[in-house]
């Protein structure tokens, strides 16, 4: 690594004795794991003893950034949180936009490793290279909006709400109006009596080759603006634009994933949102895509709902009131709750009632008490505290495991996997649980994008899923938004449209490309070049840090990230048995979707494991770890063998 780029500087913070010390990231760690979720997961091995309870003071949270965070490259406001997952017991990673990541770096730190627990509410103030422990007595009990308003405006902020304070299993953190929602990391903050972090500084964010870097970014921004997805579809409709498309392909979860089609879906669609509720677009710092929906809620302008929230608080509950979804989205954000897990758990409770198994007062098609229920969940009131533990926990107590829609304990996003079987495999194998992004987001090339790789067929899907999972992890770990990766679908296909014979033929042919993708996975280093058309992030990273990085290296870095996450799961006792989906998705046909709509997980999983270089228990083999330069973690496999 011949470069003047500085090694990342982290801070180790101990909340128990209110001390902190700087921690320069070892060169080898930086070279292999780079930043974000990859480096965060690796650091958990160093600082968190195995099988630590998530709420034990010894539990560790890593809040960190990637080298591109705040660098001025497009769509790079992202920062990341890593910890043990409250819902699954495996790895937790949660990614967020806003200004906090950039401010943390300007304050002189690339990451913070938080351990211990405070005896009284506190928050961390990180200002120009110094960290102070501040009393949060006045902030405790406040929602995320009020808590942030209480602090100086220029600060980058990251705060939990009442849900985190009450250790709701899917509590997240808010940074401005952006959410690091998934995996329950907000609850870990609550258990440590840590209300949040604020950061501010004036330090320059390092760039190794400034002129070349800024010249490349200019071209990259133009490329993003000229691409139909990032320059037109996302700014125009945001992710909300997926509602009608998913519905038209029977991929929109309806009534707790009973089916994938809802007749009145258009009432909660991105088009309806854009035409009737949108006040303007918003965006994260340095992002030319501007996908954020700004909408009016009573007398204030707020962030509008994303596709997931529209789908899961809409059709998945048998509802289609767009104003209600806007309101519930806002309520979840200020309470510090993940909308996906919250809505999905409530939908499960609705079906529990229909099946006569439990009654939490929630019904399909009934909207009038939902806001009250969400407040009670956040405040852990009475029986609603049980709803705050997620659908897996509920199904174990009340039954209904066959239709509790989660993977590893974390609820699925709003893509019906029986109409995107690759997405189904992605959900099942996702290291953090039922996540579409950690799952590779196969739905984008199967059912909801311009390209349709035969949504109900399993051919080539395992190989595609591995490739996409690696690619998305790579984009995330350098500090970029995943939306910036959607330009890998050639613009020409948008110009031809989904109904054109060429687009349809490519979708058909792609379903036979398994062997080609597998070869690429085996020898990613054949991609010894960089191009805007595949992964512009690799070249931008190279110019930012001065480190060698081609597209092939970039994919390999993503693969390393996926394996270190998986190894954390293995260390914490998760096995291949947890790479599964509920029976509803693997054995039952979609109610209106035809007789080829199940996820053939048993047939895809062995091929997926082979493509990954994992054994039949879903554990990376020694050979795979050595290939990825992770021999220092072989001891995890030794420990597993001893236990076995």
């Amino acid at each position, binding site marked *: 690594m011949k470069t003047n780029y500085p090694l990342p500087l982290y801070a180790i913070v101990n909340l128990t004795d209110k001390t902190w010390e700087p921690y320069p990231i070892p060169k080898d760690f930086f070279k292999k794991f780079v930043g974000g979720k990859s480096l965060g997961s690796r650091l958990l091995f160093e600082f968190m003893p195995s099988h630590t309870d998530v709420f034990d003071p010894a539990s560790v949270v890593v809040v960190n950034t990637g080298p591109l965070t705040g660098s001025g490259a497009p769509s790079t406001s992202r920062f990341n949180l890593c910890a043990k997952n409250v819902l699954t017991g495996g790895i937790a990673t949660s990614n967020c936009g806003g200004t906090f990541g950039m401010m943390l770096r300007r304050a002189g730190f690339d990451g913070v490793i938080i351990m211990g627990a405070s005896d009284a509410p506190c928050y961390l103030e990180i200002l120009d290279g110094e960290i102070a422990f501040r009393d949060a007595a006045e902030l405790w009990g406040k929602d995320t909006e009020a808590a942030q308003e209480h602090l100086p405006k220029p600060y980058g902020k990251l705060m939990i709400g009442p849900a985190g304070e009450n250790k709701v299993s899917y509590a997240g953190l808010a940074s401005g109006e952006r959410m690091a929602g998934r995996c329950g990391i907000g609850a870990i903050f609550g258990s440590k009596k840590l209300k949040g972090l604020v950061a501010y500084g004036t330090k320059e964010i390092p760039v190794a080759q400034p002129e070349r870097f800024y010249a490349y970014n200019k071209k990259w921004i133009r490329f993003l603006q000229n691409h139909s*997805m990032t320059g037109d579809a996302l700014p125009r409709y945001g*992710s909300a634009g997926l509602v*009608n*498309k998913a519905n038209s392909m029977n991929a929109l979860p309806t009534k707790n994933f009973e089916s994938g089609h809802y*007749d009145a879906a258009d009432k909660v669609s991105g088009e309806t949102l854009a035409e009737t509720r949108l006040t303007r677009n918003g965006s994260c710092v340095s992002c030319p895509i501007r996908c954020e929906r700004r909408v009016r809620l009573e007398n204030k302008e707020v962030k509008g709902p994303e596709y997931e929230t529209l789908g899961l608080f809409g059709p998945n509950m048998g509802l289609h009131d767009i104003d209600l979804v806007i309101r519930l989205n806002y309520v979840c954000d200020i309470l510090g709750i993940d909308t996906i897990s919250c809505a999905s758990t409530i939908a499960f409770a609705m079906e529990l009632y229909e099946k006569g198994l439990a009654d939490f007062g929630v019904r399909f098609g009934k909207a009038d008490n939902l806001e009250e229920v969400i407040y009670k969940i956040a405040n852990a009131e009475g029986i609603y505290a049980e709803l705050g533990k997620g659908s897996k926990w509920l199904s174990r107590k009340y039954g209904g495991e066959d239709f509790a829609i989660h993977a590893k304990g974390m609820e699925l996003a709003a893509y019906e996997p029986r109409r995107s079987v690759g997405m189904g495999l992605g959900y099942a194998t996702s290291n953090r649980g039922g996540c579409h992004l950690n799952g590779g987001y196969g739905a984008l090339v199967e059912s909801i994008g311009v390209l349709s790789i035969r949504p109900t067929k399993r051919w080539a899907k395992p190989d595609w899923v591995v490739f996409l999972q690696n690619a998305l992890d790579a984009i995330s770990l350098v500090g970029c938004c995943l939306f910036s990766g959607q330009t890998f679908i050639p613009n020409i296909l948008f110009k031809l449209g989904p109904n*054109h014979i060429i687009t349809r033929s490519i979708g058909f042919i792609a379903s036979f490309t398994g062997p080609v993708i597998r070869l690429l996975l085996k020898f990613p280093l054949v991609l010894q070049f960089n191009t805007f058309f595949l992964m512009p992030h690799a070249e931008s990273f190279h110019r930012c840090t001065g480190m060698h990085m081609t597209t092939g290296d970039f994919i390999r870095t993503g693969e390393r990230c996926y394996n270190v996450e998986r190894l954390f799961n293995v260390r914490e006792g998760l096995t291949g048995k947890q790479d599964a989906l509920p029976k509803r998705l693997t054995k039952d046909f979609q109610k209106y979707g035809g007789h080829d709509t199940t996820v053939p997980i048993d047939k895809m999983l062995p091929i997926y494991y082979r493509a990954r270089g994992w054994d039949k228990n879903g554990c990376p083999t020694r050979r795979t770890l050595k290939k990825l330069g992770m021999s220092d973690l072989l001891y995890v496999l030794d420990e597993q063998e001893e236990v076995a």
Partner: protein
Amino acid sequence: MAAVKVQYRGRLHDLGLPEEENLTVNTVKDTLTHIKTTFGAEAYKAAKIMLVAVNATGILMLKAWNTKLADGDLVQYLPICGGG
């Protein structure tokens, strides 16, 4: 011939086409032809590359442009979107 309702969203909405109109046609292709003859080449070009759905089911899951229509069907021209 079937009496159907056709909705125009996205780019077609921007080009000034009505939000919806009632047509009497045989197939989805007929609605596309109608767009060309009534609203011009630009609207036709935009419509051709959009997602088309009949009763909220994409025509890719039916018989594409040759999908036959029945009385009361709803044909929608929708934009292609992305997200995550």
